[in-house]
């Protein structure tokens, strides 16, 4: 099945190493632009606190992997996989995300869990 893409915003609207929240088909998605310009999208719900806040975390790296730290209690998530690096077994969904013609688009359905 081909991915159904939802237009979110202009790429320029994203600041390096910061996230934004978007509503995608009724779910909250956190979209990040890293220092190198790469895009990542994960669920905005922080499974550790139950609040929709991951888009407001600090973006960085851990052992080279791009990460975001929950602003609530600082658990760190791998932006590529959604895995929580501080709590084994905890993960958030990831979403397909791309930049086309200067526009950020997110896939309507999350990736199948890996």
């Amino acid at each position: 099945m081909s991915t159904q893409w939802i237009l979110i915003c202009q790429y320029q609207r994203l600041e390096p190493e910061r996230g934004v929240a978007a509503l995608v088909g009724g779910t909250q998605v956190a979209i990040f632009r890293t220092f190198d310009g790469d895009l990542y999208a994960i669920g905005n719900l922080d499974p550790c606190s139950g609040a929709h806040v991951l888009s407001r975390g600090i973006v960085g790296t851990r052992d080279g992997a791009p990460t975001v730290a929950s602003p609530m209690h600082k658990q760190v998530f791998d932006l590529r996989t959604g895995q929580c690096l501080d709590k084994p077994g905890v993960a958030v969904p990831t979403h397909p995300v791309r930049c086309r013609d200067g526009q950020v688009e997110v896939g309507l359905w999350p990736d199948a869990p890996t």
Partner: protein
Amino acid sequence: MRLVVVGNGPVGHRFVETLGARDPDRVFEVTVLAEENRPAYDRVRLSTWFDGAALNLPTVTGVDVRLGEPAESVDPAARTVTTRSGNLRYDKLVLATGSYPFVPPVPGTDLRGCFVYRTVDNLEALTAFAAGKKTGVVVGGGLLGLEAAHALHRLGLITHVVEFAPRLMPLQVDEAGGAMLRRYVEDLGVTVHTGRAAARITGEDAVGTVVFADSGVLRADVVVFAAGVRPRDELARVAGLETGPRGGVVVDETCRTSDRHIYAIGECAQIGGRVYGLVAPGYAMAEVAADRLLGGGATFPGGDTSTKLKLLGVDVASFGAIEGPLDVTFTDPATRVYAKLVLSDDAQTLLGGVLVGDAAPYPALRACLGGPLPAPPLAMLAPVTGDATGNLPGAAQVCSCNAVTKDAIVTAIREQGCADVPAVKACTRAGTTCGSCVPLLRQLLAESGVALPKAMCEHFDHSRQELFEIVRVRGIRTFSRLVAEHGRGRGCDICKPAVASILATQGNGYILDGEQASLQDTNDHFLANIQRNGTYSVVPRIPGGEITPEKLIVIGEVARDFGLYTKITGGQRIDLFGARVEQLPRIWRRLVDAGFESGHAYGKALRTVKSCVGTTWCRYGVQDSVGLAIALELRYRGLRAPHKVKAAVSGCARECAEARSKDFGVIATELGWNLYVGGNGGFRPRHADLFATDLSTEDLVRYIDRFLMFYVRTADRLQRTASWLEAMDGGLEHLRDVVVADSLGIAAELDAAMARHVDSYVDEWRSTIDDPEWLRRFVSFVNAPDTPDPSITFEVERGQLVPAR
């Protein structure tokens, strides 16, 4: 049991303090008879009185201290002490009468302009008399004499020191050490006369000249006698107690005199045939006497005459013997360092030593006294390496102030889990008095395998203090450059906010400018405090807690219109909870228009300066505490620090503003302000330490400026001032040296940094709401800015909205 203590000096005070701590059931009803008319103070630090230092010792509660009421006589048969107000019965009596200054029996010492150097009253009289005078002569070139010379020099007098012995500090240093010391002293412009004695003082009604025994003459307006002390044993002598041939109340190893109900401690006692004119043996006697009175079996361990001090800016240390069978000496005329170790004739045992110019090796050497040296002698004299403690014997005393051995510290680390310097201090009391062993504590922690985390995180191998210096010295203005040149990766939630704070204090202006925005924790990013359900709270600044009815009404209206929960904070302001991200700019537009500004409740920054109403309203107030609190809050608002900073000002000693629980607290006195630093509420409460007394407002602000900037520069990430101060080498004394005496020579830089902060302050919220670019961040969803976050819901509790559960 009625216990009377005669004497309120440091040793008497230590005795009462120790007894109180170990006598919780108050078996003893304690009365202290004090000759001086002021509370107990630390005579050891007498000379810091000239720096405005606070000398007062902590008040011991539950003790009847009678100031200005000396004992006039003792009747051992009737067990009474007579004072001007009558007879006091005692069951046990402790004499802690101390010493009096020895004045040589030469003509003219009763002329106006002759002084001794023993009490605060002496210093006050000397200071008053010396004003406008030209030349001062100190008789005595020992430790006290050099302190007195420093004082005269600082009072602006041409200063001479006269010492009968052939060198300065004859009791503590050897000939070569004395010569090195003399060069330092003479460089200050003080003239040294060794091997000479004053034969008489002449003058009309006041001092005019000092005539030497060798017939030389010095013109002088002021003469200070600092030629040693003699025990004050006259009460004991008249009462028929045994006294020594050269003075001093004779006591046994339990500190008991020839009368079994009377003890004597400190400089008035003769113990083991000796009278000690130093405080450390006096403290040891105080502990022995307290233990014995409570039924213990302590005996006097022998007097520790080790000394380490800074005299006229020169480090001098001496311990054990200063002459002996073998010695190893090291002299560097270029850096003016002299060091000598005295060894046993087989060169195996350290018997003593002398250090002039650099006393850094002192703690490690002092701990080795009486045992083998852990390294070759010259290596021990070289600048402190890293491994000086490894070979220390377990019984070596690391902290001589509190008699804590290496074994006791290692046990605390290994078995009681002490993982940092403050924990070791709390557990063992090591390092809590003079602080000179703190570097050794740190080494013992490191050697026990406790990693003292210096590296901030995986991205930087540096501590926060090191990063601060790198940023400062290299003029770095962005995180990207810092991490590229001095770190690795792209940072994390630990290093990024820390670097953001460092950049902010070094004058990078608005904290959301450019790349800096990406470094901020969500609180600083949205200039509000995140709450459990993802909403934020808003705290407008209310300086000093003073607010007009009009402004109160505005806060009420804003809360009502946006459906915010309101609560009064502990810092005398009002917190508005439950604001969604997209509401923040509209809320702040209303607040800014009404004259409010950011309260920085979200930042690691100055929070509030709490106050009581002071002289404005209070019938007890002695100063305008509200006015000062407002001025301080406006001065330091927005200052980014390693952690939050709280402050308070109380208008009198009743302390209604709870200033001693703050990072800096100010308490009004009749004469000005007392400054306290390093207090903390929270997880580990700590009372702030008295830093300086009776300050003018100008001096107070200067000291707080430097205290804060020094903290901002040197503290670790998320380290409050309380633990910063506890972990500091040299502790409060060192802080005072830096802030008051500018011992590091950085006061001007600290002053300039604070001046820049004050001049460049702008309200972050006003800057934000006036800029559409920045306002774009405050949206719920980037693709649906008008849709509130549907996951945020509320319920009503006690008439207000709270997060739905």
